[in-house]
C-alpha cells in the first residue's frame, strides 16, 4: 500500500502506520525469532503463573482483605463464565478458563502498558495458538464424554432432522462446528487487537508528526488535538482488551458446553 499524501508542503515525508509497524526483528540484535511479541508472551505466562501462585498462598476460611480481592476475580470466571455455561460439572474446566482469561488479558494490556505498547495478539500466530488449544479442548471434552462415534453423531447429525436433509445439514454442521469456530475465535482476537493498535498508531504517530512538522499553525493545533484525543482511544482500548479476553473465554466455555451437552 502506498502512503496517503494529504499534507501539501510538509517538510519531512510522512509514512502512515501500516503493516510494517507489526513486524519486529530480534531484540538487542538477537536472532530473528527472539522478537518483542515472543518476549511479551513468555513474560505474560510468567506473570500469570507467579500471580496465581502468590494469590493462592496462605488461604484461610475467613478471608483476609487481599484474599477477598483475589477470590472476587477468581469467582468472576468460576461463577460468571464456567458455571453459567457448563452447568454442574464445570470444575474440571475452571483452571483452563481462568488461565486463558488471565493470559489473554495480560497480553492485551501490554498494548497500553507504557513499557511495551504492543499487543502480543496483534501477531496472528499467537491468536492461532490459543484457538488451536481451544479447538483441542472442546473436541477432547466431547470425545471424553460421548466417545468418538457418539460425539461425531451428536455434533454432525443433530436429532429431529428428517433423514434426507442430512445431505444438507451435515456439511453445514461440520463447517460450523469443526472449522469456522476456531477460525473466528482466533481472527476475532487478532483483529480487535490489530485494529486497536493501528488506531492508536494513527492518532499518536500522525498527531506527533502534525505537531512537529506541520507547515501551518492550524496543523500544529490539529496535532495537539489528535494527541489529546488519543487518551480517549487508550480508554476505549482498555475496554476492548478486557472485553476480548472475556469473550474468548466465554466462547470457549460455550463450545465446551455444546460438545458435552447430552441433547444436542
Amino acid at each position, binding site marked *: 500500500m502506498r502512503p496517503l499524501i494529504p499534507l501539501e508542503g510538509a517538510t519531512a515525508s510522512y509514512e502512515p502506520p501500516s503493516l510494517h509497524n507489526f513486524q519486529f526483528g530480534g531484540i538487542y540484535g538477537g536472532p530473528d525469532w527472539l522478537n518483542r511479541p515472543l518476549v511479551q508472551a513468555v513474560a505474560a505466562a510468567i506473570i500469570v503463573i507467579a500471580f496465581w501462585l502468590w494469590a493462592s498462598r496462605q488461604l484461610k476460611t475467613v478471608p483476609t482483605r487481599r484474599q477477598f480481592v483475589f477470590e472476587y476475580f477468581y469467582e468472576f470466571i468460576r461463577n460468571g463464565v464456567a458455571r453459567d455455561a457448563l452447568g454442574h460439572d464445570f470444575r474440571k474446566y475452571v483452571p483452563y478458563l481462568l488461565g486463558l482469561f488471565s493470559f489473554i488479558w495480560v497480553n492485551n494490556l501490554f498494548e497500553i502498558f507504557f513499557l511495551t505498547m504492543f499487543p502480543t495478539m496483534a501477531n496472528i500466530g499467537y491468536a492461532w495458538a490459543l484457538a488451536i488449544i481451544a479447538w483441542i479442548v472442546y473436541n477432547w471434552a466431547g470425545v471424553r464424554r460421548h466417545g468418538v462415534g457418539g460425539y461425531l453423531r451428536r455434533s454432525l447429525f443433530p436429532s429431529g432432522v428428517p433423514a434426507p436433509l442430512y445431505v444438507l445439514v451435515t456439511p453445514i454442521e461440520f463447517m460450523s462446528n469443526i472449522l469456522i469456530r476456531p477460525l473466528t475465535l482466533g481472527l476475532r482476537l487478532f483483529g480487535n487487537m*490489530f*485494529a486497536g493498535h493501528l488506531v492508536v498508531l494513527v492518532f499518536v504517530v500522525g498527531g506527533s508528526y502534525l505537531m512537529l512538522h506541520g507547515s501551518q499553525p492550524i496543523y500544529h493545533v490539529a496535532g495537539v488535538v489528535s494527541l489529546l484525543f488519543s487518551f480517549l482511544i487508550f480508554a476505549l482500548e482498555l475496554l476492548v482488551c478486557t472485553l476480548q479476553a472475556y469473550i474468548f473465554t466465554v466462547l470457549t466455555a460455550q463450545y465446551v458446553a455444546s460438545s458435552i451437552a447430552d441433547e444436542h
Partner: protein
Amino acid sequence: MTPLVINGSVNMIGAGLAAIGSGIGVGMIFASVIQGTARQPEARGMMMGTAWIGMAIVEALFILALAFAFVIK
C-alpha cells in the same frame, strides 16, 4: 494541475462499507438490551451477558473485512 492527490488502496473503502453493517447490528443489539432493561430491570445481568457475546459475533464481520482489506491486494 490537481489540487490534491490521494494514493492508496480502494480496499479501505470496502472496509468502511463493512463497518456500516456491523455498526447497525451492534446498535440494534444494545437498543434491544436497553428496551429489555426498561421493561424488566432485574433481567439486566442475563441480557448483558448475551449481548456481549452477540456483539462479539456481529463485530467479527467487520474485523474479518478489515483483516482482508489489508491482506488482499
